[in-house]
């Protein structure tokens, strides 16, 4: 789960990690008032969206007067900000963060990531701040320093020193910078943050480290025990259909195609999307109805898929296992009747009582086709939607 920069900076501050002072604003007037409460004479106005590259897209403005702050905020609030991470449609800006300008001597890079190979949180630092780190990693791998945490989650001060000396800081600056890193890791462990990027990390003229930007990503599996983090989610940042699916408890990701899919199990759901593509059609979504796949879940799944105007047909793929296929089939028929489904639907089921399930589906009088294998199911739905595709 991602949060906004202004929320991340507030969290950093709580943990004693230095960030520039600032306020969040929803209107140009609020932005001006915010700047008036900061010393100046330089302020930065920053669009609050969940995407990087805001500066290049015109979402960040350095201002030298209150009038400039007001003008910049007026321009940024309400704009559709397009960056390399938003896609061509961009993201609507509702809020700006107005902060005190920082006297920057140097820009560094700092990140905490979950290293899946090392099975540990890992801190990465580089003297090349303000750049795309993947690019630095490719061109100058020797300019990225790493520390893998002890037991996966504990940092020793020597590790922080090693990173900061690596970035070329003086002994005095390193001494003052170590707590920056150790406190940041405290935050990660206490709040189940599994990814933090501070880019740039500024070294000020006075020799202190300060976080000029902050992106924090939290482990969704831990949100139950971190309700204060869960409360920071911004529903406006999500696809409306994905938001609706989440509210219904359905595991759904929207794609660009026109064949809806409903599958039990995430791996099989991905494989089903791939099979649709191989059959020459385009999948409209990922939808994992879960191992249970009961009537209620099937009905919710249909509801979500039908809310996507691009969907021209649906492929249902259920590997029953310990589920009884006839019960799932009855659920599909019942849900389809309730929702008055008239799209072509291809169903492939495997498991206990599958013959009975096929009979129920074939005899129900709805626009259902049954398939006996995944390949056949994908070919059938591709054929049945070919004419109707958008």
């Amino acid at each position, binding site marked *: 789960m991602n949060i906004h920069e202004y929320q991340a900076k507030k969290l950093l501050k709580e943990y004693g990690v230095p960030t520039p002072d600032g306020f969040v604003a929803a209107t140009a007037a609020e932005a001006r008032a915010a700047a008036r409460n900061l010393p100046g004479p330089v302020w930065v106005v920053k669009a609050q969206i969940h995407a990087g590259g805001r500066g290049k897209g015109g979402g960040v403005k350095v201002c030298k007067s209150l009038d400039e702050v007001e003008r910049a905020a007026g321009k940024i609030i309400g704009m559709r900000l397009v960056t390399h991470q938003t896609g061509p449609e961009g993201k609507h800006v509702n809020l700006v963060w107005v902060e005190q300008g920082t006297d920057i001597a140097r820009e560094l890079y700092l990140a905490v990531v979950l290293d*899946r190979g090392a099975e540990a949180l890992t801190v990465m630092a580089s003297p090349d701040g303000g750049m795309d780190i993947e690019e630095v990693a490719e061109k100058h791998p020797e300019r990225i320093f790493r520390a893998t945490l002890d037991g996966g*989650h504990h940092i020793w001060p020597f590790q922080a020193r090693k990173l900061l000396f690596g970035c070329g800081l003086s002994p005095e600056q390193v001494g003052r910078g170590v707590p920056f890193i150790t406190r940041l890791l405290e935050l990660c462990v206490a709040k189940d943050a599994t990814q933090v990027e501070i880019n740039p990390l500024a070294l000020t003229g006075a020799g202190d480290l300060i976080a000029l930007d902050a992106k924090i990503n939290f482990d969704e599996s831990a949100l139950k025990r971190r309700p204060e983090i869960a409360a920071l989610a911004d529903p406006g940042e999500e696809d409306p259909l994905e938001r609706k699916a989440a509210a219904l408890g359905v595991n759904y990701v929207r*794609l660009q195609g026109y064949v809806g899919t409903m*599958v039990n199990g995430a*791996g*099989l759901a*991905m494989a089903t999307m791939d099979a649709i593509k191989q059959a020459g059609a385009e999948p409209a979504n990922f939808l994992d109805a879960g191992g249970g796949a009961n009537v209620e879940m099937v009905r919710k799944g249909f509801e979500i898929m039908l809310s996507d105007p691009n969907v021209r047909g649906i492929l249902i793929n259920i590997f029953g296992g310990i589920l009884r296929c006839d019960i799932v089939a009855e659920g599909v028929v019942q849900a389809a009747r309730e929702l008055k489904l008239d799209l072509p639907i291809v169903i492939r089921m495997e498991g206990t009582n599958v013959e009975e399930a096929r009979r129920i589906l074939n005899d129900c009088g709805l626009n259902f086709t049954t398939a006996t294998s995944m390949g056949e199911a994908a070919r059938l739905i591709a054929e049945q939607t070919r004419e109707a595709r958008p």
Partner: protein
Amino acid sequence: MSILVDENTRVIIHGITGREGTFHGEKMIEYGTRVVGGVTPGKGGRKALGVPVFNTAAEAYAATGADTGVIFVPAAVSADAACEAADAGAGLVVLITEHIPVLDMVRAKSYLNARGVKLVGPNCPGVISPGKCKIGIQPAYIHKPGSIGLISRSGTLTYEAVHQLSSAGLGQSTCIGIGGDPVPGLKFLELLQMFRDDPETEAVCMLGEIGGDNEEKAADYIRESGYPKPVFGFIAGLTAPPGKRMGHAGAIISGSKGRGEDKIAALADAGVTVIRELGRFGQTVAERLKK
């Protein structure tokens, strides 16, 4: 033979009195798995599924001589249960639960690794050596004893592949669901090593998916070691968009890392027979092994 579990494996069910533990425990016993006891704090001294229940794992393993634990407890306390099993002397822990906080797994793995305890899962169907021992939630009837080793990051996708193998007349030595989480226990590489040393296993199937680089590491190992047995691979998620979690917490393309096509290329380069169409998986393996 087989790997990890067989007819001699003695199993403790952690959470034996809970809904999942009861339901799947019963099916495991039905299959012939030697379940020798269970753990539910506060319910020690009772019997469940015909075996004694203990308050602590330490008592359970000491009293029964168990060597393996299967965890059916809620996500919030799963990592704790895994460490408790390791502390009590389990050599293998099978962790079925989904949605365990990843930093809990980071700590638990560090604890288990320090004690040389093997872990399967979390977020997985479990492990089965057909005809001998089933630990987990797999439907028993799709499996058949035989000589194919199978390793998979998924649940129902595994069932699909196993079902196809069995239907094509290919039984399995051991099938392991390694789970869909970012920090899993045993991975492709370690399990490939175990299958190499298992005389009963003639070929290995690996079902991977987007996210992480465990398939790539396995590919490096297969190439560098001149792996002596045929390996078949499948990768799910070729149509998944980057930056989106596809159901499994570990199934996410981050930046340019974890893409399906890269995994397929790495496996193919290592001499693995990559099967792109899941519907033809069992058939393709059968055809290749006949030659």
